[in-house]
C-alpha cells in the first residue's frame, strides 16, 4: 500500500502568555536576526512541554521532532494526556496552523473534523446548514445534493429540516452536524473526539459508520480520543504522544495498554530483582512477576479458550510473624475493578525467610475478550492489614477471540460482539414444559 501521509521532523513551538507588550519587541528582534541571515533567536530556547512544571522559558515545544508515515487505508489512533500535542498535530495536518519546522506531505483530499457543526449558523434552517457545513468541510454542492437524503435519514431530523437550527435540541443539533461529517468522502479523514456526542444509540451508529469508512471503503483515518475502548475498537495502529514527543508507535491495542500502563514496559515478564529499589518494605519484596500459558511460555496474549497463569516471585526478608498473603487484582480496560484473588488457605504457608513463588491459574472461558491489567500485591493479616507491596497495573493481559477454540462461538455460530467483562460457561437446563 502506498504512503499517503508522510510527516518529517515536525516541530511546533508556541509562545506562552499573552500576545501584547513584548510581542512587538520580539518581532523586531526576530526580523533583525533574519535580515542578517541568522536563525530565529527564539527557536533555540524552547523546552519540553510539561504543563505541570513551571518552565524557565516562555517558549514551549508543543510538538518536537515527530516523524511517521501513514499508509492508505490505515486507521491510526493518537492518544495522550491533555496538552500532549495531539490537537496541535491534528491542526497542522488539517492546515489550520503551520509547523515551526519540518514538513508534512499528503496525498489525496483531507477532511478534518476537529469539531462537529463547524460554521453552523443558528438562524439558518437545517437544510441550509447541511449545505453550508458540507461546503465548509470541502464538499461541492453537487456532492451534498447527492447525499442529502442520506444525511437527513442518518440524523433522523427530517421533521425539523426547515426549522432554524437554533430551535433544535442540542442532541438534534449534534446529530445533524455529525451526519454531514459522516457523509464526507475524503481520502483522508481526521477526527478529534467528535464521537463523544449524542445518545448511546447514536454513538453506536457513528461507530458503525466510522468502521465502514475505514474497512469497506479503504480510507485513511486519523483519530484522536481519550476513550481507550474506542481507540482499541476503531484503530489498527496507535501512537502515544507525551509532552510533544512521540513515545510509542505500534498496534492500537498495545498503545492502549502502554498508555494505561503509564508508559511502563509492556512485557509479560517484569523483573525487579536487579533494581536497587524493589517494590516492598522491611518484611517482603517483589522480585518478579509474569504471565504465562499452561505450557510455561511467557506471554501476555491468550485465547479465550485458554487458561493462563499469573505468577510472582517474592522474598521474605525476615521470618515474619504471620504467613503472607499474595494476591492479584484484576481490572478491565476501563479501570473497573473486577476481582481480587488470593490463596484461600494461608495458615500452612511458610513464614521463614527466603524466596517464594506464588502462581494463580486463571481458567479458560472465564474472562471475556478484551484488555485486562493485573495488580500484584503481598499483604499480611496481622493486627490489621499490612501491605508490603502493591504494584498497580503491573501486568497487562489481552484475551483474544479464537473462533475455533471458543465454545460459545463454535456451537452457536454467533459472530457478533459478546458483551460483558467475563464470559463463563455455565450449566444450562432448558426443558419443554407444555
Amino acid at each position: 500500500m502506498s504512503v499517503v501521509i508522510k510527516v518529517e521532523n515536525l516541530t511546533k513551538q508556541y509562545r506562552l502568555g499573552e500576545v501584547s507588550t513584548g510581542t512587538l519587541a520580539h518581532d523586531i528582534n526576530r526580523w533583525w536576526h533574519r535580515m542578517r541571515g541568522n536563525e530565529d533567536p527564539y527557536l533555540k530556547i524552547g523546552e519540553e512541554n510539561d504543563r505541570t512544571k513551571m518552565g524557565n522559558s516562555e517558549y514551549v515545544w508543543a510538538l518536537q521532532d515527530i516523524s511517521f508515515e501513514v499508509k492508505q487505508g490505515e486507521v491510526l489512533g493518537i492518544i495522550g494526556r491533555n496538552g500532549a500535542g495531539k490537537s496541535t498535530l491534528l491542526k497542522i495536518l488539517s492546515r489550520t496552523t503551520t509547523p515551526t519546522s519540518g514538513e508534512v506531505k499528503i496525498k489525496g483530499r483531507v477532511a478534518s473534523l476537529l469539531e462537529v457543526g463547524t460554521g453552523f449558523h443558528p438562524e439558518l434552517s437545517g437544510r441550509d446548514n447541511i449545505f453550508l457545513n458540507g461546503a465548509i468541510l470541502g464538499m461541492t454542492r453537487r456532492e451534498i445534493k447527492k447525499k442529502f437524503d442520506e444525511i437527513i435519514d442518518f440524523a433522523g431530523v427530517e421533521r425539523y429540516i426547515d426549522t432554524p437550527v437554533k430551535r433544535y435540541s442540542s442532541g438534534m443539533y449534534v446529530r445533524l452536524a455529525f451526519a454531514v461529517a459522516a457523509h464526507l468522502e475524503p481520502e483522508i479523514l481526521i477526527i478529534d473526539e467528535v464521537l463523544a456526542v449524542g445518545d448511546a444509540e447514536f454513538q453506536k451508529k457513528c461507530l458503525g459508520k466510522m468502521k465502514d469508512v475505514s474497512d469497506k471503503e479503504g480510507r485513511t483515518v486519523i483519530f484522536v480520543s481519550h476513550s481507550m475502548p474506542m481507540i482499541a475498537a476503531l484503530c489498527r495502529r496507535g501512537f502515544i504522544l507525551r509532552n510533544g514527543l512521540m513515545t510509542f508507535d505500534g498496534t492500537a491495542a498495545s498503545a492502549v495498554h502502554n498508555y494505561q500502563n503509564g508508559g511502563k514496559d509492556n512485557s509479560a515478564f517484569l523483573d525487579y530483582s536487579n533494581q536497587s529499589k524493589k517494590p516492598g518494605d522491611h518484611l517482603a519484596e517483589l522480585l518478579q512477576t509474569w504471565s504465562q500459558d499452561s505450557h510455561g511460555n511467557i506471554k501476555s496474549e491468550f485465547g479465550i479458550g485458554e487458561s493462563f497463569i499469573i505468577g510472582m516471585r517474592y522474598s521474605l526478608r525476615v521470618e515474619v510473624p504471620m504467613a503472607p498473603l499474595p494476591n492479584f487484582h484484576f481490572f478491565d480496560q476501563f479501570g473497573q475493578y473486577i476481582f481480587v484473588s488470593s490463596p484461600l488457605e494461608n495458615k500452612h504457608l511458610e513464614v521463614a525467610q527466603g524466596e517464594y513463588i506464588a502462581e494463580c491459574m486463571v481458567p479458560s472461558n472465564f474472562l471475556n475478550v478484551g484488555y485486562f491489567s493485573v495488580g500484584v500485591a503481598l499483604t499480611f493479616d496481622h493486627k490489621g492489614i499490612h501491605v508490603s507491596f502493591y504494584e498497580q497495573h503491573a501486568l497487562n493481559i489481552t484475551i483474544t477471540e479464537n473462533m475455533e477454540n471458543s465454545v460459545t462461538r463454535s456451537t452457536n455460530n454467533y459472530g457478533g460482539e459478546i458483551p460483558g467483562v467475563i464470559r463463563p460457561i455455565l450449566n444450562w437446563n432448558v426443558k419443554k414444559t407444555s
Partner: protein
Amino acid sequence: MNQSMQKNEDWDLVIRPKSSLFHLHLADIWHYRDLLILFIKRDFIAQYKQTILGPLWHLIQPILTTLVFLLLFGRIAHIPTDGIQPVLFYMSGITLWNYFSICLTSTSNTFINNAAIFGKVYFPRLVIPLSIVLSNLIRLGIQFGLLLATMIWYHFKGYPIQISLTWLWIPVLVLLMAGLGLGLGIIISSLTTKYRDLSILMSFVVQLWMYITPVGYPMSYLEHSKYATFINLNPLSSIVEAFRYALFHKGSLNSSGLLYSFTFMLISLFIGLLIFNKVERSFMDTV
C-alpha cells in the same frame, strides 16, 4: 530547486513552515466556489432573520442618511451640489460610499470574527472577505434600485433622467470600490490578528474618511481651497465624483484621478493578498 520540485510531484499537498510569498492558492478559491456562494447567501439571509422589515432595512438606512445630509450640508451649511438635485446628489454619494465602508469594516474583521471556524477547518481564507464584498453587492444593488426609483420620481418632477453611454462607467466604478474595500480590508484584517489596536482605530478612521470624500459636497466646492490635495490624494474621491458624472452628466470625470484610484486599488489588492496569504497560515497562534 528543480530537483526538490520533482521529488514532491506525486504529493497533493505539502505543508511547510514557510511557503513562497507568491504562492497565493487562487486556484483553491475556484475549487471552493460553492462555499463562496453559500457564504454570500448566509450573510445576506442571516442578517435580517427575525426582523419585521427584513431587507427593507437596506432602504431605510440610505433614506435616513440622505435626509440628514440634506439638512446638514444643504440647509445648514449651504454647500452647493453642482446643479444636481440635492436628494439625488446625496443619495448617489451615500449609496456608493456605504458600499465601500461596509466592505472595508466587515473584511477588516475577517480573522477575528471567524477565528472559531478558521481554527477548526481549512478552506481558503480569502473566501470570507470575497463573500463579504460580493454579498454587499446585493445590498448595493437594492440601494441602487432605490436611487433609480428616486431618479424616476424626480424625472416627473422636472429633473429628467439622461440615460447615455456614461452609465457604462457605473459597473467599472463599483468594481473599483469593491477592489479598494477588499484590498484595504484584508491588509487591515491581517494586521489586526496580532495587534488589535488597529480594529479600534479602523472604526473611526472610516467615519472620518467620509469627510475627505466628496459624499456630502462636490469636488468643485473644494477645488481651489488649500484642502484640495487631501481630497485628491483620497483614491475614493474621483470614483464618487465619476459615479455622479456617469449618472447625471454633471461634475467631472477626472481620468487621471481614476487612473490613480485604479493603481491604488491594484497595489492595495496586491499587498493585501501577500500579507493575507502570509497571515492565514499561522494566524491561529496569534489571534
